């Protein structure tokens, strides 16, 4: 940011290890959270909630989950939408079959179901790495697509195979309007962001990063690869499970198994690649990018007075989208978060060259 840490000396380890060691960063983040909770609801239309803000927040949560696995632990997965599906269907079934459960409990249980499934599909990571692991995680995707389409119990024997949800009630608060959904999702995402930050700066996070950076050295200093990799798969899938439940209940409302197909997995992967591997902030930036870009590409020609047919518009959208991803991979493989960090570092000294 436009400020420096001058004069902020740390005299205790606690002060040095806090989440945001620079005071201005703390004020800025607090102001941002306050703005999101109090100002946004006054400013924003329902359309914006439904098409941009809510999906952005929920996908951010899923992207954080995937980032914990891919960016922090270095285990690639291209089947993470599957774990979102497990979370969504687990939540659906819990709400259907055990209606007295509080939805917050349902969310946690949905996360746990996804975590179990994720850990199961993470077992191959103990033996294989890289591309081979990616192919193995693809199995999770296909298996999940298959099971929710074929096993009718999961969809409560609905004839079309799709499921639908009623508005959620928590402590007497009916979360029905887009604004209510936004506030609830925002709360969940903030809590889970904090948890993710805490995890990655604790010893579990260090075990993940050590496994990512140099697995033999990690093992030699006493980190069990089984523990590091399976916890990463578990926590990551937990996040995606919760995100899946939110996606189902607060974004889609009703959905069929195809809602969590391979495309969504790829979108999540693009988010963390563009946003920044191994960065929580990057998950936010990447999700914002992926959610907002198609809409912006759709609307900008219109605003500029360039009439485009719908078919043309969607083709142009794909082309721009594809080239942006390639550009990012070539020019800044560490994503938007790295650009942000570089900018911050430059501004620390600006306008002086040294």
């Amino acid at each position: 940011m436009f400020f420096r840490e001058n004069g902020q000396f740390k005299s205790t380890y606690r002060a040095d290890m806090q989440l945001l060691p620079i005071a201005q960063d703390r004020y800025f983040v607090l102001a941002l959270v306050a703005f999101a909770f109090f100002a946004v609801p006054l400013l924003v239309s329902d359309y914006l909630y439904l098409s941009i803000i809510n999906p952005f927040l929920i996908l951010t949560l899923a992207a954080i989950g995937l980032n914990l696995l891919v960016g922090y632990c270095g285990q690639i997965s291209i089947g993470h939408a599957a774990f979102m599906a497990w979370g969504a269907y687990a939540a659906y079934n819990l709400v259907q079959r055990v209606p007295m459960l509080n939805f917050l409990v349902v969310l946690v249980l949905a996360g746990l179901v996804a975590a179990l499934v994720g850990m199961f599909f993470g077992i191959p990571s103990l033996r294989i790495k890289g591309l081979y692991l990616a192919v193995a995680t693809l199995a999770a995707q296909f298996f999940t697509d298959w099971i929710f389409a074929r096993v009718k119990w999961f969809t409560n024997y609905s004839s079309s195979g799709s499921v639908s949800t009623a508005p959620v009630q928590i402590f007497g608060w009916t979360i029905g309007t887009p604004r209510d959904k936004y506030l609830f999702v925002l709360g969940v995402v903030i809590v889970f962001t904090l948890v993710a930050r805490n995890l990655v700066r604790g010893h579990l996070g260090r075990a993940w990063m050590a496994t990512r950076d140099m697995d033999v050295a990690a093992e030699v200093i006493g980190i069990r690869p089984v523990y590091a990799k399976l916890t990463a798969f578990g926590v990551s899938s937990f996040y995606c499970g919760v995100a899946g439940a939110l996606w189902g209940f607060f974004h889609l409302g009703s959905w069929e198994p195809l809602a969590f197909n391979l495309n969504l997995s790829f979108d999540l992967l693009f988010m963390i690649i563009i946003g920044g591997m191994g960065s929580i902030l990057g998950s936010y930036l990447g999700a914002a990018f992926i959610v907002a870009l198609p809409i912006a590409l759709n609307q900008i020609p219109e605003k500029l007075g360039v009439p485009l047919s719908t078919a043309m518009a969607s083709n142009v959208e794909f082309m721009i989208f594809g080239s942006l991803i390639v550009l990012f991979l070539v020019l800044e493989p560490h994503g938007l978060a790295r650009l942000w960090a570089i900018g911050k570092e430059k501004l620390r000294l600006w306008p002086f060259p040294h």
Partner: protein
Amino acid sequence: MASLPVQALPASKRLDEPPPAHTRIGPVILSVANISLDFGGVRAISDVSFDVREHEVLAIIGPNGAGKSSMLNVINGVYHAQQGRIRFKDREFAAMQPHRAAAMGIARTFQNLALFKGMSVLDNIMTGRNMKMRTGILAQALRVGPAEREEMRHREVVEHIIDFLEIQAYRKTPVGRLAYGLQKRVDLGRALALEPEVLLLDEPMAGMNVEEKQDMCRFILDVNEQYGTTIVLIEHDMGVVMDISDRIVVLDYGRKIGDGTPGEVRGNRAVIDAYLGATH
């Protein structure tokens, strides 16, 4: 910090000369017996045995490809030998496991830097404390009292190591940005964070200039004296090896061809032949 064993000696003696070896060196702490290691038909080590005594500095030397690094890898369980036994602190193993070696007090640095590139110096060394950290996943997620207290306790130990290695200025720097010599120090620091009883150093001075080598020698000897850590090191610089080691094991083509004090090894015919080439 542990009290110096040296302090038991009269001050005058301490200043001019290191303590005589027999007062410092204890019984055998680690012994490898008849180790043989194959890689798909290529024999890397054949029938090598030697002992490591407590508190000593033992050097393993030998020409390239002699099996020195493989030997260290067998000792801390990265490789599993096809034959032979490893005996450490009165427990005998056919094969070590890396985490068990770490838990029992064997730490290791690497020939080609194996630091965690994406992490800061502090985090790299903190990772060496991971094995000793116990708080569960939930406590860490919420960072409640015990998790934070544990983190601070270990941070203090790590800060001592940072002070000892004189890398305070680079605490928060990503290790990838450090000069090579400093990275080697961080590697040593990460190993020290385990508070090992035996420290395996794989070419700690490779690629360093004279000043850096002197610094590294000083750190190694200080670790040995202050913490009483047993050191097993591989090194190619004969000046350094002869100077700092109590005993030297010489390997050539996977066999042991010499074992003894620097003086004995220097006069050993087989060793001279291995290094200078012999006419057969």
